[in-house]
């Protein structure tokens, strides 16, 4: 409760132009934002750019924040938009080198446990919009209603994105199973980041 009160006070002060208060807010949130961006865009440099962009936008736009109590959700939304921008930048430059650290792995068929690398490959093939709702749901533990409010999306859209994400993931895993040769070639650094 104490930290909440402090953050609320910092938000109010930062809205009035207090850069020290903003610095406190940025320090308190930067790790979380970066971690979220990294799982969404699947690239450390892009995640860094997206986080920085989100925080700079937060500073610029803070005076227009209508509900200081919704600062956290607002910050998530800025981050998500920055991730979308990064996704677009990747596409426009054709810099799809997101799988450079990937090493093809042998699927564990017997245990029912999906290999992390396969999960990673499948997740990268999802559109960014679907990755975002999946991450907010699983990592931040937001309900579909909370995601809808945070992102300003209709609840139905959130639900369908979650559903499509799971269906897409499943299809990607099945396709991965069927095409081992292609999987290896994709592992050399193309094919991801189509969000």
């Amino acid at each position: 409760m104490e930290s909440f009160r402090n953050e609320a006070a910092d938000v109010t002060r930062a809205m009035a132009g207090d850069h020290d208060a903003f610095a406190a807010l940025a320090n308190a949130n930067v790790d979380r934002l970066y971690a979220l961006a990294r799982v969404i865009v699947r690239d450390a440099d892009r995640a860094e750019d997206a986080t920085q962009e989100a925080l700079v936008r937060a500073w610029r736009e803070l005076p227009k924040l209508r509900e200081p109590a919704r600062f956290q959700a607002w910050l998530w939304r800025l981050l998500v938009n920055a991730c979308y921008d990064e996704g677009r930048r990747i596409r426009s430059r054709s810099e799809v080198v997101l799988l450079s650290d990937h090493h093809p792995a042998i699927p564990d068929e017997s245990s029912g446990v999906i290999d992390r690398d396969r999960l990673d490959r499948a997740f990268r093939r999802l559109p960014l919009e679907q990755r975002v709702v999946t991450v907010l749901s699983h990592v931040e533990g937001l309900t579909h209603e909370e995601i809808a409010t945070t992102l300003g999306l209709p609840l139905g859209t959130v639900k369908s994105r979650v559903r499509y994400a799971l269906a897409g993931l499943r299809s990607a895993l099945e396709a991965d199973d069927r095409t081992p040769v292609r999987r290896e070639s994709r592992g050399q650094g193309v094919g991801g980041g189509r969000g």
Partner: protein
Amino acid sequence: MDRFSADLDRQLGEWLREESTTRAPGRLVEGVFAQTTRTRQVRRWWPPASPARSLQLAVAAIAVVAVTAFAIARLLPDQGVGTEPTPRPTATPGPSPTLSPLPSPQATSLDGSPAMVLRFGIDAGPIDVVEAFGSIWTANIHSHEVVRLDATTVQPIARIPAGTGPAWFAVTDDALWVTNQTGSGLVLIDPATNLAGLSFGEATPCGAPVLAFDSLWASACDSNVILRFDTADLADIAAGRRFPSNSELISEITAPGYRWLAFAAGRLFTGNAAGLAEVDPTTETVTDLGFCCGDVMGSDGQTIWLNRVTDVVRMDPADGRIVATFPYANAGSVTFADGRAWLTVSGGGVIEIDLASNVVLRTIPVPGSTLVAREAAGALWVTAFDTSELWRIEP
């Protein structure tokens, strides 16, 4: 959700949580501070007035009141107590009561065609765009407003606060209606006054409404119902003869899991991942047709267009036959004009398709997550959701 999907979902969650424990590099924070110390904050639209400015405003306000009172006294006939009320204002658009500055549209070109782009600002979230009552209208879900624009210059005429999440339009003879997609029901937009009414209807709509069988139909998929509004009742509401009600004017048809609607070959359809279904306007029931499957996007009048996530198909609803397949994932919406379809693809621009031959005529590289492309007032209008832009592209 089947067992495999549930298991996959669980493992996905575990993996994502493990992946999200990374700490930010120190240079990131330094970079933010370096930029923000140089970056000015964006202030509110209207800065606090100084005492001198306040005095000027007060004098101006008194002058406006005096002139208005004089004008009213001159225009109105003598009226005693109990005389008939004056008629409603004529359909001349008035200024928006909340008109605040939007950036001017910028002239540009797109794939060789002259174009204009209007940027609504951060996170306005434009969804639908239509032509009605001599203007272009956009529904901006995040900024909770409908924007009325000049069809030639793309200059904003009015910004109209409308519900809590205006998304999709329906146009009737007297008014414009917009779905209140993060709230509930419909909102009336009066083109004569540029004012919005209160929302009515308790379910949350999703997708574009459809006019058919003397009714306006709107899917409310989160509530598992389809809403039906009688167009005669809507006309009464638009004319001020009837106050919008949450219950008595609206039929709610049970339609669990069904999303979106389309009117094709004289029949009303809805659908979901399991298949296409028909809505019977007489019995107000939904019957599954057994034709697999996808989200209904719209109809060209005869066939239904379905989004199947990885592609878009045209289906003949008479027998479920797929007439054509278009290999576009992330499709947004489809509209139709003069024998052509305009299909939006997020990140893939706008696709023009010849309806007679199913040939893709061209791809217009509109940037961003294009959502609705509609021919109107001699141009193609396109909303880009994530970048909050409206494009006007010359043919």
